[in-house]
């Protein structure tokens, strides 16, 4: 089941086309929105929220039309913007409770919920401090807390690790992973940082120049065509290479004792053939795994760079 669907969505800023005939279905779970700077990721998020009106096309999020049912849609969605944002003059509890009030929560519920999400986001100790005095990491966390306070079904995270040091980044990614798995919250993470996306997301959508370039599970995108396997031997073995050649199997070296062996008809057939070659060469197989490329390679291929 999809959380959001877009059909030929086009968004223009004057003559500049930010989203061009963008069509896709965003599945449930944690989905990464990948693309280089200026690809249209933030524009898509802002269009979802109704900040920018599409010039063409349609879209719906959690059953609400993005053009006509903005209020109902935003009731079900939480936004963690890329930029720092807070309400001046408020401490964390006041800010998050106020965000809850804006979403229609009664005062008492909003305050109680603010305490809960601040604890969850790791700001329990600093909840009575003015938000303007927060560090960058804390500001990222409070942005997440205000997005979560009204219990959204879809969380839009725009560059959630922006400006964080390695430890802060780890903690934020852990938080995102935690909220997006088994909590009933779907998450769309927009980022140009591939390791972040790989760490927390199950699926990705690759956007480039306002167009959808690739979509699917990360494992599928990383899969190499032809189902090859990566073989690591205990020590270098020219005999193993010769044995592969004698069976007309194509391969390429990946290191002194590592080979990428092209797949045969089925994965099972390939595995049997590799073990047979190793036995013939008297080589010891240390590891055997389906060959994968990195997400970066998959991403580069998707955007044709």
């Amino acid at each position, binding site marked *: 089941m999809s959380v959001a669907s877009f059909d030929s969505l086009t968004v223009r800023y004057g003559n500049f086309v930010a989203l061009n005939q963008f069509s896709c279905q965003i599945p449930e779970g944690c989905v990464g929105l990948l693309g280089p700077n200026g690809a249209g990721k933030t524009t898509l998020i802002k269009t979802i929220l109704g900040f920018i009106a599409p010039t063409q096309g349609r879209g719906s999020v959690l059953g609400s039309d993005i053009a006509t049912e903005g209020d109902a849609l935003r009731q079900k969605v939480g936004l963690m913007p890329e930029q720092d*944002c807070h309400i001046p003059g408020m401490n964390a509890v006041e800010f998050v409770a106020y965000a809850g009030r804006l979403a229609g929560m009664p005062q008492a*519920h909003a305050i109680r919920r603010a305490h809960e999400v601040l604890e969850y986001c790791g700001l329990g100790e600093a909840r009575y401090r003015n938000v303007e005095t927060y560090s960058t990491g804390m500001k990222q966390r409070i942005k997440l807390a*205000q997005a979560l306070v009204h219990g959204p079904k879809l969380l839009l995270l725009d560059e959630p690790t922006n400006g964080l040091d390695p430890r802060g980044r780890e903690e934020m990614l852990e938080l995102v992973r935690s909220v997006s798995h088994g909590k009933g*919250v779907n998450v769309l993470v927009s980022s140009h940082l591939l390791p972040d996306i790989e760490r927390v997301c199950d699926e990705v959508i690759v956007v480039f120049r306002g167009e959808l370039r690739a979509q699917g599970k990360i494992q599928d995108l990383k899969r190499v065509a032809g189902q090859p396997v990566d073989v690591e031997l205990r020590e270098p073995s020219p005999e193993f290479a010769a044995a592969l050649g004698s069976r007309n199997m194509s391969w390429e070296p990946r290191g002194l004792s590592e080979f990428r062996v092209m797949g045969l008809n089925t994965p099972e057939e390939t595995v049997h053939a590799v073990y047979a070659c190793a036995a013939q060469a008297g080589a010891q197989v240390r590891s055997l795994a389906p060959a994968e490329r990195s997400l970066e390679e998959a991403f580069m291929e998707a955007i044709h760079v």
Partner: protein
Amino acid sequence: MSEPTSNPIADLTYRNYDGPIEPARARWLPIAAATASMGVKKKGFWLVAALSSWYYVVMLIVFYVIGNFTRQSGDRGAQISEEFFKRIVWKDQFLHGFGYSQMLFLVLAIMLGAGAIANDNRSNALLVYLSKPLRKIDYLFGKWLGVAWVITLVALVPMLFFYLYCLMTYRDQGFLSQDPLLILRILVLAPMTGLFYSSLVIGISSLLNQGRLAGAALAGVYFLTYFFTQLINGYRMNLLMMNPDQTRTGLDLLWYLSLDGINIALAKMILGTRGQPPFNAGQDFVLPVIPPAWIFIPLALLICGGFLAIAWSRVRAVEVVR
């Protein structure tokens, strides 16, 4: 083994919110409440609010002294007291109290509203507001109302206190008989100034990224127009001294063309008085005419509407550069 705690905050796992949600029609209410609440917490707010009632306090003291101590000093004193109260035009006291506090209302408007949108612009808070299920009209109306109702209360409370005191004490001196509808006029007058200054300060605040700059801009408009009308008044008085019998309606109307002048013009229309000096010195000829409603009501509405239209056009969740 320790007992599991019943405190929900001790449970750090994430739980969804499935509690009640209020109807979408009143989303401006928390914005208005927060704007007002942050405003009244500012340093000096209560001092300025108290100072804005200075005229009523002074007049109450004067009335009390003349009404009590002169009567105690024999027949002559009683006669002085009677003549004094005969000269009092009661609704003029409200006009003066209102007029003399204009600058303080401006200060209050700046304290409450200068940063209302400007500070949100600076801290990207509009993204927080507009990503929630509310509309731009909720945001603007909430900000506007948050400033307007506090100024209204600050203007109204001393007026009502003064009215009630005079009603209880000076009914025999014509307080009620001079204008039985005075209470209704007061109830219209006080919100008017709140709505006027609120519209101005919200419009200017939306144009800038810093509350201080917005405050300085509004103060600049106030004082520029004020000095213009003072120059007009100087010229007008000069002409009046030379020829007291000649009416100068055009100059009289120009005298009202400042921010406080427009408020005073509306107040004169609402109260139906030209505004005698506090102790009725009898120089009626120097008082500007009551301005015509057909000019000043549309003018006030145009100014308020113009500044609110500026705010409407400036409030955007995202800045789209075309």
